């Protein structure tokens, strides 16, 4: 089970780093978000609502780490749809491997890609803070190795949950066009009904309720407590992490169950 999953994960990662344009886009995208959206946004949000962030840009940068993770996970399904279309999926189905290795390898590869992407965003955000005239991520207090590992853990859990959801969706839907539509449908509400870009205290009550159970909210809430020491979050850090772990456990199980069903011979 392990060796097959590793082999297939390797294939996914090779696809990824060989697609040069894709890598370039991955770098450009956060630059655009941080550079345009973030810089131009009027800072009318009261500092007191921003989980200890010194300014909106710092607040939003942490949200960007979670959003780039969501974006990276969204596209995991595309390769599955292609693989089905070209018969690669059938080739895997005819091989003496545990079927679960097929969805698992996609999830693992996506988690690695998402974390790498988020680290790039982090580097850019930290860099922006040191360029005169630009705003970036300003860390409050000491950011040590355990804080860094905490951020990675949160991103891994978040990516696992999202990648599993999108694997399950892609295996169920099978059609490229429909898949795009569904991804778009899921993407925007997930992003905006969360604390990733705006403090939830400014949202109407019903939206707050939704945002509070959004995995994105848990992730940014946890990460902000690590980046901005002494701040209090919506939840405590341990609740954030436990919640995310629960989400990823549920969704990866769901992903595998859906995958087994969809890969089963009819």
């Amino acid at each position: 089970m392990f060796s097959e999953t590793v082999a297939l994960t390797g294939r996914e990662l090779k696809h990824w780093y060989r697609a040069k344009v894709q890598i370039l886009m991955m770098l450009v995208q956060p630059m655009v978000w941080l550079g345009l959206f973030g810089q131009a946004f009027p800072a009318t949000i009261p500092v007191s609502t921003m989980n200890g962030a010194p300014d909106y840009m710092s607040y939003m940068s942490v949200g960007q780490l979670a959003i780039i993770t969501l974006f990276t996970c969204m596209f995991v399904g595309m390769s599955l749809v292609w693989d089905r279309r070209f018969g690669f999926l059938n080739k895997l189905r005819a091989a003496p491997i545990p079927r679960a290795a097929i969805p698992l390898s996609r999830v693992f590869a996506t988690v690695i890609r998402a974390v790498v992407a988020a680290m790039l965003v982090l580097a850019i955000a930290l860099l922006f803070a040191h360029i005169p005239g630009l705003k970036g991520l300003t860390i409050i207090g000491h950011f040590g190795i355990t804080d860094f590992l905490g951020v990675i853990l949160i991103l891994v859990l978040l990516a696992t949950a999202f990648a599993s959801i999108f694997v399950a969706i892609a295996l169920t839907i099978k059609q490229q066009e429909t898949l795009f539509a569904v991804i778009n449908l899921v993407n925007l509400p997930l992003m905006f009904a969360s604390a990733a870009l705006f403090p939830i205290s400014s949202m109407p009550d019903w939206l707050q309720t939704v945002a509070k159970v959004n995995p994105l909210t848990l992730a940014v809430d946890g990460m902000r407590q690590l980046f901005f020491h002494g701040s209090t979050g919506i939840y405590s850090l341990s609740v954030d992490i436990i919640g995310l772990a629960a989400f990823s456990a549920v969704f990866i199980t769901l992903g595998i169950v859906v995958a087994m069903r969809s890969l089963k011979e009819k």
Partner: protein
Amino acid sequence: MTGYIEVKDLVKVYSGSVRAVDDITFEVMEGEIFGFLGPNGAGKTTTISMLTTLLRPTSGSATIGGHDVVKQQQKVRSIIGLVPQELTVDDELSGRENMLLQAKLYHVENKVAKERIDELLDLVKLDDASDRLVKTYSGGMRKRLELAEGLIHSPKVLFLDEPTLGLDVQTRTVMWAHIRELKESSNMTVFMTTHYLEEADSLCDRIGIIDKGRIMALDTPKKLKESLGGDVISVKIDGEMDQTEAIKAVDGVLSVKKEDGSYRVKVMNGETVTAPLLQGISKNGGKVTYVTLERPNMDQVFLEYTGRSLRDAEQAGSYDKMAMARQMRRSS
């Protein structure tokens, strides 16, 4: 002797009503090349999919090496190799990386795999291109890589689904040579499907003719051709004299049909009867100006057993076009 592949009363019904495979029973012996010949949509790929555990039979049973294709899937999967109809090799990996991935999926030990990959890439003449990305390969090269992949774990049975579909004549000949070489160098059983008559004729030890999900005939190519009732010698004879009686008097002649100045003579064995036949005619005063010997080919066999020529049957489906389009899309 019992078969290595045993198929009994196998049925596959799609969406409740389409009987893609309609109660077929046959055996494939160890070490033989067995071919399924039939037009597109005859049920060839459906049969392969059931034997390779990709589809669940509606009813009936099939075993490979004694393992049931429904109940012992993992065992079956580990002893078979599949070269599917579509090109499924990975564009973004090199030839060697494709092979390595396949080796890992089939649990071939790393050390063994390295040697075997070199061997196989050599066999299919891809050793020079092995480190190039597959997206730079031609269609024929991809197909050969596909064949090499199917052999990575030295399977007991190799399934070839339309191994030469969409290939040009030269590449097709090369594929045939590879398949023959395989048979000579190992005791592998090969189960292949094709809708090329000459392919089935020249490669297969035995052929099953399948049409509309049913096996219409199953035998060696030679016997199938013989079953059509021998060869036909056509002779053109100068002069007004009727030679029918003289021809009938020759040993081995089964029947004679006169059409204008020429005669169609059905004989048991064309090679041995031709000479006596010509002698008989000249003794009777006839002057032969033209003679041809026609041996029955698979086209006639197909016509005989399915009631339609393969070409007519082909036109019923547009699958070929789809397969071509898919390959083009992939290479662009």
